[in-house]
């Protein structure tokens, strides 16, 4: 598997015709024929649930796995702000082309034109689909759908359901999935972790899972496998991701030959509730939508001890409005985060730690009233108050950037297939559409575009060339040997019997990754990370202590298996960040910046997707997919 050409299979015709032409060329299967195939889907968040429902509607038999007790608990549920769609309901000049342009520019020219255009094109269908399912989007008094603005764009194209858009969209996908579950077209395996992928004759043919309740390891066979397992922000220990979000399924696929793309492209979200103490287990996001009406500022004076309301207007630095007059508080996430770090590093940070800035709603409350704020952001204000015990109506919020999303992920071609034939990756789990920085309200859009509208077509094409059930009995030994490896690994972890709990080692890893592969990176730090991470790995394998038995509900063992893969991933992240000697989007290399401290891209040398191949005995091998911009002019991103 060492040498192959990375073929993105992107169509080369006119951009606006590509997807429809491509779809016409894809193989199809009648419902009767589809019924002979089985597809395994790992993960039942927005991407996984929407794909499972749609594939079952087309006649396929689907086995869906989740480590949750119900599909409704996936972390998509926590997305707050909204979902973008180029509907142009506001008549403000929005279009597919503009959404495409904003997304490519927002991603700092490190994503594929063809994929992004398709995403923009499908965005309108997503809203139609969700409304048909009964998703209760916010509406205007006339009864039509309402929109709001998000960072990095100058049109209003974000559809929302208060600050709970992810919840409502996930419940929509879950309802579609429920309908198929009731028909028996989907079989749901709750509380299962995927621990390996079964590859036979170079093709993905199944998975090995662990039943979290009784520890049973089992092989499952299928004609194709879809990974919809989300992102890997928890490599940082503290992130806005849910506690169990992990990279394990993706990493196991990577070890079996799936290339991992742009692992160092991670998104630090500017508006999160700051870390308060060393016991903190996770971070909470305050939606970007707050930047529509909230103003970000710090005191002009360093280490200013005064309460925020005692600091007069002329002694405040509204730094985003000052540096970026055109976009102001609505600059993209990477830009807002970096500037926030900059003012805090200079000593202008606020709160006890000095690692926070203010997000102030005084003006909007004065201008539009409390009622307006309550309607738009009610649940966010409540959430903030519960956590901090402060009322943002009267005292500005304190916020600081935190890890939120990972643009990197499994490399996929235009069909969302990884480098292992028959293995697909959708939603945040793949690397595809957001380049080096994702725009707000685009994650939900991508997860649903992949799940409802793209993978159902492309996987059908793949399967139309495969004989169904070809693995039933003959390859039983392969299935068993893969499961055997998994059992051995668990045995080994149980037998370490050291003195450290999983969280202790994870926190150490997180600190290295945050300090050295976080908001800004440099060659020295990255080299240090590459030396320190193997020591963490050593610690894991010699000092870890797992209580109880592997045959029981053992939440520590679950965490340990996930941490093991995070450690290996962290090394690849450092390597990828070191290799990319330029700054772009969320990847800010201190050595490569303009005089105004903006990211300095190097299109001549680094306009490619870095796709890494796992190498058991040595350094991962880098494959480059060159990017080409035929429909959009390369330029330096500016939000001034």
């Amino acid at each position, binding site marked *: 598997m060492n040498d192959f050409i990375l073929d993105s299979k992107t169509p080369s015709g006119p951009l606006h015709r590509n997807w429809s032409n491509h779809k016409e060329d894809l193989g199809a299967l009648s419902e009767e024929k589809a019924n002979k195939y089985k597809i395994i889907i790992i993960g039942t968040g927005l991407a996984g649930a929407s794909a499972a429902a749609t594939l079952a509607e087309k006649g396929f038999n689907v086995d869906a796995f989740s480590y949750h007790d119900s599909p409704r608990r996936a972390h998509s549920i926590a997305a707050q702000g909204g979902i973008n769609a180029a509907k142009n309901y506001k008549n403000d000049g929005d279009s597919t082309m503009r959404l495409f342009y904003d997304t490519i520019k927002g991603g700092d020219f490190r994503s594929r034109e063809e994929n992004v255009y398709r995403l923009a094109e499908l965005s309108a269908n997503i809203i139609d689909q969700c409304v048909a399912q009964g998703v*209760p989007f916010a*509406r205007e008094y*006339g009864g039509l759908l309402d929109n709001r603005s998000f960072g990095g764009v100058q049109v209003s194209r974000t559809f929302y359901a208060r600050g709970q858009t992810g919840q409502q969209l996930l419940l929509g996908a879950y309802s*579609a999935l429920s309908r198929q579950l009731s028909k028996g077209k989907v079989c749901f395996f709750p509380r299962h972790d995927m621990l390996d992928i079964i590859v036979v004759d170079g093709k993905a043919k199944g998975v090995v899972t662990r039943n979290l309740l009784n520890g049973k390891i089992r092989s499952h066979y299928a004609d194709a496998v879809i990974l919809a397992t989300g992102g890997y922000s928890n490599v940082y220990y503290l992130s806005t991701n849910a*506690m169990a979000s992990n990279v394990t399924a993706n990493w196991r696929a990577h070890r079996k030959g799936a290339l991992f793309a742009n692992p160092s492209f991670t998104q630090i979200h500017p508006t999160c509730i700051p870390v308060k103490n060393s016991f903190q287990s996770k971070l909470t996001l305050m939606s970007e939508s707050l930047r529509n009406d909230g103003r970000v500022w710090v005191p002009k004076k360093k280490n200013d001890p005064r309460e925020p309301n005692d600091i007069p207007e002329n002694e405040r630095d509204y730094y985003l409005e000052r540096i970026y007059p055109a976009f102001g508080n609505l600059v993209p996430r990477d830009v807002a985060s970096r500037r926030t770090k900059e003012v805090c590093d200079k000593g202008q940070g606020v709160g006890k730690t000095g690692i926070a800035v203010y997000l102030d709603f005084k003006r909007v409350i004065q201008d539009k009233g409390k009622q307006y704020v309550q309607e738009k952001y009610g649940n966010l204000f409540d959430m903030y108050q519960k956590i901090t015990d402060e009322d943002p109506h009267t005292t500005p919020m304190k916020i600081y950037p935190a890890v939120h999303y990972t643009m990197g992920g499994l490399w996929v071609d235009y069909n969302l297939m990884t480098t292992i034939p028959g293995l697909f990756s959708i939603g945040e789990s793949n690397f595809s559409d957001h380049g080096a920085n994702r725009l707000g309200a685009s994650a939900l859009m991508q997860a649903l575009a992949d799940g409802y509208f793209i993978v159902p077509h492309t996987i059908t094409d793949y399967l139309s060339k495969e004989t169904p059930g070809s693995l039933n009995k003959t390859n039983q030994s392969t299935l068993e040997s893969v499961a055997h490896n998994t059992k051995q690994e668990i045995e080994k972890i149980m037998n370490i019997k050291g003195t450290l709990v999983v969280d202790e080692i994870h926190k150490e890893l997180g600190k290295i990754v945050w300090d050295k592969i976080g908001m800004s990176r440099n060659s020295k730090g990255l080299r240090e990370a590459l030396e320190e991470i193997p020591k963490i790995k050593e610690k894991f394998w010699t000092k870890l202590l797992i209580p109880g038995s592997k045959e029981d509900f053992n939440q520590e063992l679950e965490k340990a298996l996930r941490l093991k893969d995070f450690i290996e991933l962290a090394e690849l992240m450092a390597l990828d960040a070191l290799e990319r000697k330029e700054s772009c989007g969320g990847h800010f290399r201190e050595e490569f910046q303009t005089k105004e401290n903006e990211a300095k891209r190097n299109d001549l040398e680094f306009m490619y997707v870095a796709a890494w191949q796992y190498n058991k005995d040595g350094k991962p091998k880098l494959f480059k997919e060159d990017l080409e911009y035929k429909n959009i002019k390369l330029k330096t991103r500016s939000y001034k």
Partner: protein
Amino acid sequence: MNINLKVWRQEKDTKKGAFKTYRLQDIDPNISFLEMLDILNNKLIKQELDPVAFDHDCREGICGSCGFMINGQPHGPKKATTVCQLYMRSFNSENEIVLEPFRASAFKIIKDLSIDRSSFDHIIYAGGFVPVNTGDAEEANSTVVEKANADEAFLSAACIGCGACVAACKNSSAMLFTAAKISHLALLPQGEPDKKERVQKMVATMDEEGFGACTNTGACSAECPKEISQENIARLNREFIKSQL
């Protein structure tokens, strides 16, 4: 602050459980309740004892994974708050804090505070959806929904499926959970065509799963972390009666 925990420990559903007490000292009042349990568990592991199992994931009050009884109240003492959003500052030093799983015959105990709520999923599978295939949708704005109805549907749809309503109810009824979904879809034109079938199937499944009947005490709504209103139950009853006419 120092706290005395009394925690329900039960290895599995088929085994007998009992309370065990634990004392934690010097707890920072600004840590969350679940972070306090993390501290307890890390201590137990280091003493080679079995940590307390509990469900949790998003830790921001939206996934619905967490939930157990704290001093007899689902999700503890704060109104409209899930366990994961509860902070230690809501308790006094030297308080005894009693933790028990949500108890109902339709929720089997998996271990300690962790329970199986798949009975909720089964109610949704019975009809908590609009029967529309992917790709069959018409242009979104061709469906006009009065803002008041859309807002009310949203409030019903905000249920997180945690099970607090069942745990709070003396009859272990799942009426509020079921009613929230019935209401969400009954308030929207999209839910209109199959609303009779939906309410009948969901109510029947609720009974089959072993949930009790509703006697309108309102405990469910009072304890609901998302403040799902009892009006939903009235609407379910109306929909149910209408479906039989």
